[in-house]
């Protein structure tokens, strides 16, 4: 009975050599970032769509988990304050789903907002005389974030984790200027979160 040469080591070596299939690659086809149609660019993270009648639909890329995006409402541009707590150049700032105002615990400029429930954005032509609040320290609630005035703009689904804007209309007061504001979406065209968009425009003082 002849013995065969054991092929085992050779086969094993060959099998190990085949073990590395080609890499799938770091990124698939390089999609461009989603294209947002804008009439005017307010900065690297801000785009405006002019809806006419002094109403703008503004989209913010607030997808960073660390860097706020600061917006000045009077000229609709993004600003980069050195010290947001003292800098008066900004009115609103965005980080993911958080929205803060330059007032109260968030800043020194006294920007305040009033929350109007049960009204239609289009019907808000004059600012209310009262009801304005500034960002407050964290109160008795579940989170550990400051109690931003603009914190009730969404419904959160425990099932899908999706944020859906409510119909709440805010009136923001910055100095003598008043603006109506309503959140429109939290996701961009490609479905990425951290891209809030809102409809806004200046309105008459009370």
């Amino acid at each position: 009975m002849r013995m065969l040469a054991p092929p085992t080591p050779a086969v094993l070596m060959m099998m190990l050599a085949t073990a590395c299939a080609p890499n799938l690659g770091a990124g698939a086809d390089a999609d461009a970032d989603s294209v947002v149609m804008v009439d005017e660019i307010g900065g690297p993270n801000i785009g405006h769509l002019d809806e006419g009648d002094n109403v703008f639909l503004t989209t913010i890329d607030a997808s960073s988990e660390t860097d706020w995006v600061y917006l000045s409402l009077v000229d609709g541009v993004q600003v980069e304050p050195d010290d947001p707590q003292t800098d008066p150049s900004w009115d609103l700032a965005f980080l993911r789903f958080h929205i803060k105002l330059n007032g109260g615990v968030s800043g020194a400029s006294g920007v305040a907002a009033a929350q109007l429930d049960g009204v239609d954005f289009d019907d808000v032509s004059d600012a209310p005389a009262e009801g304005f609040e500034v960002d407050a320290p964290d109160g008795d609630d579940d989170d550990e974030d400051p109690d931003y005035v603009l914190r009730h703009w969404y419904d959160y689904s425990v099932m899908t984790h999706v944020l859906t804007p409510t119909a709440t209309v805010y009136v923001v007061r910055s100095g003598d200027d008043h603006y109506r504001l309503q959140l429109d979406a939290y996701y961009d065209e490609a479905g990425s979160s951290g891209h809030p968009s809102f409809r806004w425009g200046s309105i008459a003082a009370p």
Partner: protein
Amino acid sequence: MLAGIVAAWMAALLGPGAVGDAGAQARPTEPKQPDKPTPEDGAGDEEVRTIVVTGTRTERAQSDSAVATQVYDRKAIEQSGAENLGELLEETPGVQITRGIGGTGIRMQGLDPSYTVVLIDGQRTTGRINNVMDLSRFPAEDIEQVEVVRGPSSVLYGADALAGTVNLISRRPTKPHEAEAHFAYGSFNTIDATTRAGLARHRYSASLTAGMHNTDGWDADPSDVGTTGPRSRQYNASTTQRFGEFGPLAISFRGGYLRRDTHRVDGTATGAVFDRTNRTEVIQATVRPSLDWDTARFSLSASYNLFRDQFLQDQRGSTELDQSQETYDQLGQVTAQYDHEVRTHVLTIGADAQLEFLNASRIEPSSVDRQRYAIFAQSEWTPTRAPRLVVLPGVRLDYDTFFGIYPTPRLAMMLAPTRRWTFRASYGRGYRAPSFREMYLLFANPSVGYTVRGNPGLRAETSWSSSFSAEFLPWRWMWLAANVFDNRLQDTIVTDTADASDTADATDVATLFEYVNIGEATTRGAEAQAAVTILERLTLDGSYTFVHTRDHSAGRPLPGRPRHSGTAGFRYHRPASGTGFRVRSSILGRRSFFSDSDDDGVDEERRSAPFATVDIRASQRLLNYIQVFVGLDNVLDAGNSDDNPLQPRTYYGGATIRY
């Protein structure tokens, strides 16, 4: 590269001229019939006994084993038309097949796939995704026999063998020369093409198997962009080699390589659409020298598993949520076992070492390892053979570098007062080690706003289980069996919302989930099976299973388990003409799921409708070497995209040529 292997192997095959003695095999070589009646069990035929190994780590006739073992032998695998392990086990009594992100899993005795261990020739496999070992990854062409043991086998195999053990026995050549080619084509561009060659000599046997399996995937809900069943293509090759009869020494080797690409499209609630691609590779190699004497046996098994998975997520219309991840999971295992027979006792002692390494991008730290060392001992005592009584106490001690020592004892008994009756009982402990994922996962999903965090402080989940079964063979043509089981699990690992304050990046609405050992669960049930052979050609079988489950921490049943389920089969085989026809079916009763669908903070129960799967297959032998077949899977077109992602009705046909 594959061509090289084939050439090397062909040279080995064609080199020697002489036809040696076939069948120098330690393992039984012919496809065996279980002790149930089958059409092939002719009245005067010598009984061919099925040999099983899983329940005791020693080779025993299925009817003599103190641990009830369910067997699919090669013939049953081929008759089923299954192309992989998942399809094979689909219509198994008391077994529920799950389909999800981790692939095709098995639920036994009402417990999730994470509680069942899948072995190849008794050695562990690796590469669970979502705690599921994907059964569709194991190609049928590699398998000689599948042995399924319900209930805990931690006493022999250690971690994860809590609900059950599935042991794949590799196919080994039985004839001096053998060759096989198999091709099947079906709906959804399903292609199964496999080839195999083998030789068996007095002291050497070898086989080489290669396969390609393709499907274009399917979509249960064409109204949305997402797909349900992934597109997939798999290539696999394996070899077995055995050198034997050198005095008491024999050495066997098995090695295999598998590569699979899968692709699916997922739409999410935010409107994002992802193309998700996985490239999975598995290497498995085992060397097993063994020494056989008249009353003793020593074997050493050294095995290595590599599971590599590349995952690419490509967001349509953006790169913001694109992801690329790579996972390397390596497992080395060395097992030594010594069996010694002294009069009415067979003593088994053994030691086991496992080393596991994981590199993955979703865990923190990105590279972790753990070791586990174990000793086990078992004594099989057969005080009397007629009536047959077997008492099988055993214990295993595992030491894990993370959570210390776990003892897992078991006592199993078998009594066969007459040839017609067999009773079995067992009581034992099982445990499941927390997975690396549960300990180290750090997965933030900013697109939907939650984070899942692993918990390195997790303990093992443990269980006490008992079972009792009876088999009755009133006549040669009828087989009846029933069993009851009870599993009590403690310290089960569940995800719980954790305090997010210490997570710096919890900037989204951040629900933070963490794994904790706070669960407690019970599953218990009863099962009845029957098989009847009529006129030696026709076999009818059926089963009914009742399972009661309870998740004590949540105060409700475990989700997705049917209380009632059953199987029914019909098989006709005419050996003279080589004609075969079979119908397999499984029926799953209503299942409950729980979710907070209306966002009121309280989970609602949702019930899914009962359903049945029916598979039909007909085959015909031609010219002695060729078997042609046609089949129809999921005749009733059961399934939906919501809670039951079953492949729709599938037609297929093909041929197997065997020499």
